[in-house]
């Protein structure tokens, strides 16, 4: 027996970053909004307080803040010819759970994409000719331009209190910033964090090879700050517990710190936790959603009618929800037709370790999630791809995120895996190893996609999402190219320090076992037409004008940057369209 509740204006599925932003923007316009969150409520005080939050075993290793795979996981295979099997324990990526979502346990590395990213297909073909895009890559334009998003990037950075140094102010290249960033209308709201030893060593070496280093834009606050919503943030104290942990200091931008204080308690907003949405109710003939059905904390099925449904769940959960709800046409890799589940992309990660003499101290525990320096000389379209045989790129960064020793105890590759020699090596290298991250783009391929698994089910009995993915040849070439550059910088760092340099190259098939990133993107992509995409440029479903989808699932490909800055900018862009246009006259905002 399904309980039917009174209708509301807007129902949000998921209360992480995008849910919080949409709830704030739409309640400000007077709309009645219900936010459904499948996890528990939680707040900075008392839930994130240290020292108990600083428990590496509980939170980093046992994934205390993550979605429990026993509740829901995905199945995985590299290729269609294989049988997908469930990801039985979390590994390669760590989807968040509970109020605030992954916005609680992220590092805070906050980037903008390049201008070319939003028009990638047109740009590449114009610059290099059609042949530049390898057979099988399904690169497309996003339907929105950087210039349109810029004010929303700016606003999201101000909501988060990002610390950084502009490299391109309205077209003027600024010293000390990233000369390859897209033009920004304003400086960052806060200055960068102080730079640790690893970043300083990297900065000097990168400059020596002719690259252009700068401090990474950080959502770890560099000073006290009040954001445009009136929320107060406090300075980061570099405790070294960001990624996989909540911040006890109100110092890492999160929904809890930057949005919820201005949202909770508003009469227009209601938060319901422990509510797992199982489907969007869809009227196929009217091409409209009527609301959502969810299972509440007591196991009861509830129908929440709503004029507008906005999916704000973690990336691949949005794709699964559309598939479970029968909205849009599922992607078929055989024909290339259909769009739901298409262009699932990831992040092509590699790295370089520089093992230095014992006199060089990195003090890795003096860290913060986005503390460090980077270069974008070989990211996106910052460099000429002519003759290289690939498109895309990545940034190279020296981060000092923390020295939590269960997971951070780097040793050279020829060290035994256990025993006395291992122990000696752990002691020797813990404080004098510098790691360079190669954070590469992920281009969509026709064989990489999401659909529903025919066999495995979640704890509520619904089909799991099935992920079919391997790194395309394009991305492997790209990763090798950028890793070469990182290795060269590593050698410059190592030379005067008796150091040795080891690259972790992108080799073998994609595996769900080792952690890489939680940048799962695509699957409900935005685009210019309903044949190639699920959403129009306002993140509105082509097949149901009162369904919008937020988050990284809307990315048509994944550029070589962390996604959250763009996730926030797109959410604010869509929120403005919904609030200023759609709610006044509900209709498809783009004619198909």
């Amino acid at each position, binding site marked *: 027996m399904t309980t039917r509740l009174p209708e509301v204006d807007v129902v949000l599925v998921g209360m992480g970053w995008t849910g919080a932003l949409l709830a704030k923007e739409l309640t400000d316009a007077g709309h009645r909004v219900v936010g459904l969150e499948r996890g528990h409520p939680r707040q900075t005080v008392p839930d994130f307080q240290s020292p108990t939050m600083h428990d590496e075993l509980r939170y980093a290793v046992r994934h205390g803040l993550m979605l429990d795979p026993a509740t829901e996981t995905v199945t995985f295979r590299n290729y269609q010819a294989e049988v997908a099997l469930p990801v039985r324990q979390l590994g390669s990526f760590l989807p968040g759970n509970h109020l605030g979502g992954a916005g609680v346990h992220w590092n805070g590395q906050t980037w903008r994409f390049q201008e070319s990213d939003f028009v990638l297909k047109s740009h590449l073909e114009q610059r290099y000719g059609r042949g530049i895009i390898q057979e099988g890559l399904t690169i497309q334009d996003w339907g929105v331009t950087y210039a349109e998003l810029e004010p929303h990037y700016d606003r999201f950075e101000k909501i988060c209190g990002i610390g950084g140094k502009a490299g391109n102010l309205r077209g003027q290249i600024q010293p000390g910033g990233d000369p390859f960033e897209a033009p920004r209308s304003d400086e960052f709201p806060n200055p960068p964090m102080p730079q640790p030893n690893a970043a300083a060593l990297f900065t000097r070496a990168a400059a020596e090879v002719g690259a252009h280093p700068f401090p990474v834009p950080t959502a770890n606050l560099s000073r006290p700050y009040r954001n445009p919503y009136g929320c107060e943030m406090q300075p980061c104290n570099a405790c070294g517990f960001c990624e996989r942990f909540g911040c006890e200091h109100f110092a890492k931008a999160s929904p809890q710190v930057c949005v919820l204080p201005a949202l909770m308690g508003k009469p227009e907003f209601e938060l319901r936790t422990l509510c797992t949405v199982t489907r969007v109710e869809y009227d196929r003939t009217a091409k409209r959603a009527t609301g959502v059905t969810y299972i509440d904390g007591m196991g009861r099925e509830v129908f929440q009618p709503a004029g507008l449904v906005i999916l704000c769940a973690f990336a691949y959960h949005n794709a699964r929800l559309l598939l479970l709800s029968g909205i849009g046409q599922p992607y078929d890799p055989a024909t290339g037709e259909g769009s739901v589940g298409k262009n699932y992309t990831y992040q092509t990660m590699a790295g370089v370790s520089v093992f230095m003499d014992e006199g060089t101290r990195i003090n890795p525990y003096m860290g913060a999630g986005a503390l460090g320096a980077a270069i974008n000389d070989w990211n996106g379209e910052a460099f000429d791809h002519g003759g290289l045989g690939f498109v895309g790129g990545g940034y190279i960064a020296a981060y000092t995120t923390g020295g939590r020793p269960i997971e951070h105890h780097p040793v050279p590759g020829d060290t035994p895996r256990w025993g006395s020699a291992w122990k000696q090596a752990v002691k020797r290298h813990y404080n004098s190893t510098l790691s360079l991250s190669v954070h590469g783009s992920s281009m969509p391929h026709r064989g990489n996609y999401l659909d529903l698994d025919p066999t495995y089910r979640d704890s509520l009995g619904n089909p799991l999402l099935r992920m079919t993915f391997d790194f395309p040849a394009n991305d492997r070439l790209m990763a090798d190219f950028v890793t070469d550059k990182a290795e060269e910088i590593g050698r410059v760092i190592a030379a005067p320090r008796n150091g040795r340099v080891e690259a972790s190259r992108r080799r073998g098939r994609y*595996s769900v076992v080792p952690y890489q990133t939680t940048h799962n993107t695509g699957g409900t992509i935005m685009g210019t037409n309903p044949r190639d995409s699920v959403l129009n440029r306002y993140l509105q479903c082509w097949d149901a004008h009162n369904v919008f989808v937020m988050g990284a699932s809307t990315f048509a490909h994944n550029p070589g940057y962390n996604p959250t800055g763009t996730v926030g900018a797109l959410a604010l862009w869509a929120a403005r369209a919904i609030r200023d246009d759609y709610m006044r006259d509900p209709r498809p905002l783009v004619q198909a």
Partner: protein
Amino acid sequence: MSTPDLSRRGLLIAGGTAAATPVVVPAQAQPHAHGQAPAAPPAPHVWEFFTGDEAAMVSAAMERLIPADPESPGAIAAGVPEFIDRQLAGSYGTGSRLYRQGPFREGTAEQGYQLPFTPATLYRAALPAFAGWTRQNYGRAFQDLDQRLQDEVLRKLETGEAVFEAAPSSLFFETLLANTIEGFFSDPIHGGNRDMIGWKLVGFPGPYAGYVELVGRHNLRFDRTPRGIAQAMAEHAHHAAPMNHR
């Protein structure tokens, strides 16, 4: 994001650890560096998961994975066996955060762990196999072998050369290794890393942390004695004052 560790094996990892033989007393009962009160002797551990023999065997194995050396104590002194015992008796052991629905079938390495074992059932199945295989091939209990032979046995588990009927020996080895490292480096509240032996080895100062003013002081020599989550009690911070009850 972290640099991926592409070498890490796709097995049942992320777990607890177990087994210190009661006879082994932390070798470094000598007074602590720096005027800190000597650590109170650990309360006697009641094995919750391991039998006495299993505890002795697993403890001996862990001590080979992270051995004591002249400079610093090893896994047993650090309480790693007790840590794993507690982990296996608790929610980790029973397979929390593990998707356990069938059908179970063999997958590729890239698809990760695909067996029905929880950590506890894995140890339960593998420990007798480990004991039996060692006795059969080496004529004695693992804990009674000399260190060279213990290492040889462990290498045969690691490579899968030791074939157990009940569970893959390499899976057991990888789980044991991961659990041992966890027990050596996790906060002492979990029962391992006793006296913060693991943290002192590398110089990790622990969960009481905040360094923003020091970040810019490059190459700083920072060797503050670590402090664990529960150190307030260990350091005897308390109210000594009478209160006026109104």
